[in-house]
Every structure is written in C-alpha cells, then in structure tokens.
C-alpha cells in the first residue's frame, strides 16, 4: 500500500491527549481516552451517536474542559479555558451547526472578531476582500465578499464556515460533519482542499456519519464506543465492514417485545408527500414519500440528519405545509387541518427538541403533562381541578414519570423523565397514531429502554407508532419495520426481523456504489472497488 506505517515518535504528533475523562453529572461521556493527532494527516473519528466523538472535539477545541486528563500541543501541556484560547494556538473547529451571522456579509463573517485594521484603526476592507477572494478561489466557489450570508444556500454557507476556519491559519482543523449540507461537487472540492491543506502541514480531524466519504478522505481511523476509544488504525488496514463492526461492537439487545405483533388496519397513510425546505426557499426537504402505518405497528424511519425525517413528521403533525401529496388518518384526508384538529382526531407528535418544542419550562410537571388534553377535560369554561388531577395522575402513572410531586418544576426532572412527560402529554390525548422524532435524544440508557417498552405496550393496545432515529441499534431493536430515508426520499425499506446493521447503515449512506451493491446482495462485506482506488489516489497525494 502507499500508506506510510504509523510512526509513534513525537515529532510526528501535533496533539496528544492523555487519559481524558469527561463527566456530565453522573454520566461518563468519555473515559480515559488517549488520543493522537498526527501532523499533516487526516484523522477520522468513527462512532455511533453518543459514543463520545463530539465531546472529545469540544474538549480539543476549548468549548468544554475535561474532568481529568491532559492535552499536549507539540509536546507542551496546554489547557483551553475557552474556544478562543484554542484558536490562538491554532486549533479551529468547524461545527456541524453553522455559526454565522446571516445579516452580515461573507467577509464580515469570515473576519468576525479578528477584523483587519488600517493604520487609523478602522476596518481594512480592501485587505479583507482580497483574502476572501483568494479563499474563494481556493474553494472554487463563486461567492463575492459582499454577499449577505442569508442570501447563500446552506451548502455555500458551509463553505463560508470552512473559509472562516482557513482564514484563521489553523494548524489543526476539526471538521464536524462538514459535508452534511454539501452537494456532491462541493464535497469533491472540499476533499481537494483537505488534501491541499494536509500537504501544507495542516492536520485535520474529521467526523462524519457518511462512512464511505470518511474512508475516502482519511489517513487514520479512530473508533469510539460508549465513551471509550476502541481502536486506532491506519487507512491501509481497514475497510467499511471493519468500521461498522468496531463501532457497533456487541451492543446489548432488545428491551422490545413487539416482534410477534398483530396488526390492524392502516391508520395513517401518507401518499407522495412533498415538504418544502424551510432554510432554502424553492427546495424540497421531503420528496415523494409514501408510508402506511397500521394499528399496532411500530415503524422506524432511519436516516442521517438532514434526510428530511424531521420535516416529514412536522408536516404530518401540521406544523409544516405539504406542497403536494396527502395524509390520511383512518381514511379521512387531514392535510388541511390545524395541529389542534389533528390531535383531536388522534395524530400526535412528540417533537425532536424537547426543550424548544416539548416543554413549557415555567409550568409544573402536572401542568405540562395535561397541557394537550386540557380542552377535553374542561367542562365548558370550568376546569375542574379534580378532573385535572385525575388526568395528571393517570398520565404520570402511564409513562412512569419519576417526580417528587406533580407540582414539581419540570426543570427539576432528568432528561429521561422530561421526555416521558412529553410522551405522556401526547398519550393523554388518546392518539391513534403517535409520531416521535428522536425520542431518546440526550437521555440515559435506562430511560431509553423504558420508553421503547412503553411504546411497544401501547402498540399492543392498537396504537400506530412512527418514530425517527439516527441510532442504528434503536432502529433494529425497537421497530417492526424500518424505512431508510436519504436526501428527502425513501431509499429502502426492511422488515426489522430481516434487516442487518450493515444493510441499514449502508442504505442510509450517500455512496451510490454501496447502495447498488446492497440492493443486490445482503452481505456487502467488501469495500467497493471505487473506494479503494479513490483512496489510492488520495494516498498518492500525501
């Protein structure tokens, strides 16, 4: 192979993290991680959601501080109190979420906080414009410095983020899911920029859920699982199946017992749904999706972020409009109804962002859980506190919220119990179909199990469940059927009993080669030819 053998001697290492541990409250996000970033190489972090990749990157970029452990930069121990400390030392992170001011120009964003000054102390626009133009030439983007960021497509905004990082003359560049918003061409350009950068001595840390893309670009692979570093390998020694197997490990299997279900009639029927993209006018986030959910069935939509999953659920719930297509609940078209009317007819959504969309932080546990069903228990104008208490008690018992009292503040509960309150709130409306968007986001393992057990129990009573997840284990253990979405479309559908990790994960990825392969065979254990040649090309550059 063209790859050099890994050299363990110091001059090759730009960053060495020793025994990094990070705790949030009682939860270990990282345990004893030893980690090396090599000069002028691309190091990719692999791992499922919650494996600890982002936490490590936040520590390396100064966003968070480790509970214990040390970081050495060029052999000298350093500590970052804030992101600007890290930037001063040449470590820059490009976050997955864009951190741009949409009301400012591309130039102003790129130099925000580090404005070039003239002799009199005003901003030196000429110098800034020149640098921006050079950067844009390098990135092969036709964006003028004066363009407002809000006028750019999401992909172009991502390019601006990258340009911003480049302008800071980073020695270490951390990229968290840099390609999620990019088109195929833009991804190609990005990879070229990455190889230019590494050639000039910049070290790249790369995080991506697109395994094939990551394999394409990387020199070293580091795999995380459950907050620990499991393996470090050179590119030459690894392939896609190795990564998937190492990432997933032998995860504990199901808490879920809806594997021999009896289904009723189709309750929710989505036909050819098209949903507009909220961030880019004129584009669609969901294109022609059709799904049937039967009573008693638990259907999972698996896919990467940005696959249109959230938009689909929000359109079903009535928050977003449908451009075309229809939604039928028990045979009647509900596409024109308001959120309220849909809930009354039995379609309820448990939203993705619990804090933003799920809870009213100023209200108590009890008032939160009864919020959606108040109209039903109020008799005319009068809201009987006894009727409400019965309702609240029923809700709390049904989803087993652990709270000192229904009067307790909702913010005093743990994430898992808060999520149970949100689910209980919607269950109290007696839904026929429950939609859940990432129902286990940010909650501990025990609560995850409880929530899926609860859903299975409700399904046995005839509830149709449609939930979205980006955790493969959840998809495989908590559903009867898996629908894989990518870029707004359904790419594959599995009966959970017949699906394998590799198939589902490959189907959600962006690689056409993998897709067509896995469509033919159920055992796609070889890296595609295209990939290895791409890698060879990449290796030659280095």
């Amino acid at each position: 192979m063209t790859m050099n053998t890994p050299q363990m001697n110091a001059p090759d290492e730009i960053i060495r993290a020793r025994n990094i541990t990070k705790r949030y409250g009682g939860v270990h996000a990282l345990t004893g991680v030893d980690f090396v970033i090599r000069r002028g190489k691309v190091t990719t972090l692999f791992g499922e959601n919650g494996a600890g990749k982002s936490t490590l990157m936040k520590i390396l970029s100064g966003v968070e501080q480790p509970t214990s452990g040390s970081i050495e930069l060029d052999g000298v121990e350093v500590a970052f109190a804030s992101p600007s400390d890290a930037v001063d030392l040449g470590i820059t992170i490009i976050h997955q979420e864009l951190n741009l001011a949409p009301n400012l120009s591309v130039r102003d964003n790129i130099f925000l906080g580090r404005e070039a000054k003239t002799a009199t102390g005003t901003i030196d626009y000429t110098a800034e414009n020149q640098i921006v133009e050079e950067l844009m030439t390098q990135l092969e983007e036709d964006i003028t410095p004066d363009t407002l960021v809000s006028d750019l497509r999401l992909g172009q905004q991502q390019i601006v983020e990258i340009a911003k990082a480049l302008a800071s003359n980073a020695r270490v560049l951390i990229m968290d899911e840099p390609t999620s918003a990019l088109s195929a061409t833009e991804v190609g350009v990005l990879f070229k920029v990455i190889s230019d950068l590494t050639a000039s001595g910049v070290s790249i840390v790369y995080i991506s859920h697109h395994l094939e893309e990551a394999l394409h670009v990387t020199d070293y692979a580091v795999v995380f699982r459950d907050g620990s570093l499991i393996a470090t390998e050179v590119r030459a020694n690894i392939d896609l199946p190795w990564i998937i197997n190492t990432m997933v490990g032998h995860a504990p299997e199901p808490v879920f017992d809806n594997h021999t279900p009896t289904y009723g009639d189709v309750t929710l029927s989505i036909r050819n749904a098209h949903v507009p993209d909220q961030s880019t006018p004129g584009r669609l986030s969901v294109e022609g999706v059709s799904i049937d959910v039967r009573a008693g069935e638990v259907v999972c939509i698996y896919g990467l972020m940005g696959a249109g999953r959230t938009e689909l659920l929000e359109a079903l719930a009535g928050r977003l409009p449908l451009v075309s297509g229809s939604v039928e609940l028990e045979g009647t078209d509900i596409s024109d109804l308001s959120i309220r009317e849909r809930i009354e007819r039995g379609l309820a959504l448990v939203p993705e962002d619990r804090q933003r969309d799920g809870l009213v932080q100023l209200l108590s546990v009890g008032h939160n859980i009864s919020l959606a069903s108040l109209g039903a228990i109020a008799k005319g104008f009068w809201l009987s506190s006894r009727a409400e208490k019965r309702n609240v008690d029923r809700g709390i018992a049904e989803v087993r919220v652990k709270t000192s009292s229904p009067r307790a503040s909702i913010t005093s509960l743990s994430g898992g119990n808060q999520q149970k309150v949100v689910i209980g709130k919607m269950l109290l409306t007696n839904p026929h179909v429950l939609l859940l968007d990432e129902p286990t986001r940010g909650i501990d393992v025990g609560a995850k199990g409880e929530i899926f057990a609860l859903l299975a129990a409700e399904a046995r009573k005839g509830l149709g469940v449609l939930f979205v997840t980006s955790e493969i284990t959840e998809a495989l253990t908590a559903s009867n059927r898996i629908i894989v979405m990518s870029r707004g479309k359904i790419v594959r559908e599995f009966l959970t009993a017949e699906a394998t990790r590799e198939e589902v994960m490959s189907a959600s990825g962006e690689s056409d080669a993998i897709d067509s392969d896995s469509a033919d065979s159920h055992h796609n254990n070889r890296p595609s030819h295209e990939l290895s040649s791409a890698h060879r090309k990449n290796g030659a550059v280095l």
Partner: protein
Amino acid sequence: MSTSTLTHGQRPRVDPPALQQSPNKPAGKIDFLALLMEGRALIALIVIIIIFSLLSDNYLTLSNLLVMTRHVALNAILAIGMLMVILNGGIDLSVGSTVGLSGVIAGVLLQGLGIPALDIILYPAVWVVIACSLIIGTLVGFINGILITKFRVAPFVATLGMLYVARGAALLITDGRTFPKLQGSPELGNTGFNLIGNAAPLGVPMAVWVMLVIAAVAAFVLGKTAFGRWLYASGGNERAAELSGVPVKKVRVRVYMIAGFCAAIAGLIISSELTSAAPQTGDSYELNAIAAVVMGGAALSGGRGNIRGTLIGAFVIGFLADGLVIVGVSSYWQMVIKGAVIVMAVALDQLQQRLKTNKALTYKAPTKQKIPPTDREPASSSPQ
C-alpha cells in the same frame, strides 16, 4: 449553542442544568433572602405606608386610604388587562388611548346621538351607553389581536399604531372638545351614569368594587380555566403549546380583547367620576399599568406573573405617588423616585430568579447519583 448540539456524538446525558451556575452561598442565608424576596412587593408596600405615616399625619387615615385606593383601582383595572397581554409575551401600548376613546363614546351617546337624515336625536339608556363603550374598547383590542396574529405585526408596533389611531379617533369624535355634564336628565331617561364613578356602596368607592370583581374574575380565569393554562403555556413556550394543540392565536387575540375591555371600564369610571368626557383622558396610563405588572413580578418575556402580584404592584405605585404628593415632594422629584422604584423592583426580581436557580441547583445536587466534587463543571452549559 443550543440543545440541538446534543444530536450528535454526545454521550447520553442528563439535560444540561436549565439555568446558569453561579457562586454557591450557604443554604440558610439563601432561604432567608429568598423569603424576603418572595414578598418584596408586599414589604415595599408596608415600608411605604410606614414611612409616609411617619412623615404625615394625614396619610394613614381611613378617608385618605379610600381616596388612594380609588386612584389605585383605575390603574389596577388597566394592569389586570395588561397582565394578560404580558403573560402572553406581548405588550399593549394602546390602553391609555382606549381609556380616552371609550369615555368619549359614552359622552357622545349621553349627549344625544343626532341622526340628521331622520332629524332625530337618540338618547340611549345608560346600560346601552355602557355596553357600547365596552364593545368599542373590546373591538380596539380585537383589532390589535388581528394585526398581531394575522398580519404578524410585532405587538409593540401594532399597539403603538393603535395608541395614535384610538387617540386620534377620540379627538375626531369630539373635535378636540370635552363633553361636560354627563349626568343625563330624568325626562330623557338616561340618568345614573355618574353613579359608576361616584357611588360608594358600604362606604367603598364603586371603582374599588369594580377592581375587586375584575381581579376575582381574572384570578378565576387564570387559575381555573383551560384558557388560563393555555395563556401561561403559550407565553412560556409558544412552540410547545402549539404542538400540544393549544389554539395559540385564539388565545392571543383574546388577551388583547381583555385588555381593551379593561381599558373601556377604566374609561367609563373616569368619565363618570368627572361627569365629563375629555379626549385626552388616559394619556400615558399604559405605562403605569405596565409598571404595576412588572412590579408585581411578571416577566415581560411571558408566562410568569399573577393577579395578586399585579394588584400589589398597582398599590405600591399608587400609594407611593399619593404619599409623595401628600408630603409635598416636588412633582419633578416624584417622577424620579417613581422611576427609580420601578427599575429597582425589576432588578430585585431578576436577583430573585437567580437565587431560585441557585437554590434549585444546590438542592438538586445531593439527590443525583453521587456527583464528585465538580471542580470543572462546564462553565458554558447553555440555558436550554
């Protein structure tokens, strides 16, 4: 950063403490302070009464207390309507103008409504006059609500516009003049209007009775009806409320209608007290109402506040203002002192919120699964 950063690659964790960390203090001290803070508006009221009764013998007399309470009542009625709007996260700048407009409407009707085409002058009965005036006030609020929900004009701007429009309308109707002598005449069958402001059943002015009734009804609505809960929920987190099926737009329109209704009642009381209706009546009353609401512990961001607090807030402002007059402080100083007290009250309120947070954090810690000494807690864990 927001919680959306949790999506990827983060270890499942307990949600970040909803609120910012701040220096720990001994628990006992916090409790004492918190108690003091909780009742600070009431304490302020008591302090004001004590100080002014020491400064003037006339302050703490039954007659003066009744007079002051009558002044307070007008502001309190406006403040209760304003509280509804502020609980919703909005603001209503038009209530002062609505006070003037509704008074003028009553004035026009009692003076006789001429219909030139038929060559007659209508003298509606007093109850019709009152009803018309209340309807106009509610309608003003309805228009505010529609502008805000349907046309998505920011509440501040929509009601600022209405402030001018309603005032202008009042001036147009009267041509800038004042309607005097609204007591009516027996032969026209429209007497009794002056009773609203001047009657005093059981020795307590009518305005105070009206305030008590409105406060009781409002407290009932906020505490015992679905509408009340919806109001708190949509003010606290409109997105979550909407996804829970709360008719957030309907709620929003209603609160502005309530504010307009309350303003009309205040307008009727004032014009009845004076038995005349001037188009300038109620100028800048909206600011006093807002002051009473925030003094009473409501959050301008919505979702937090109650009737009891608002009433106390209105009393603090009213008793302070009248006290300053009685002891003869110059009117310029009165304004300075009033302004300072309002700002201080809100600053204390913020302090109280922080204290609560600290308490929640220090209280929460031991109940969690043993947290080791957190020397390196994330200093930047973002609030929600």
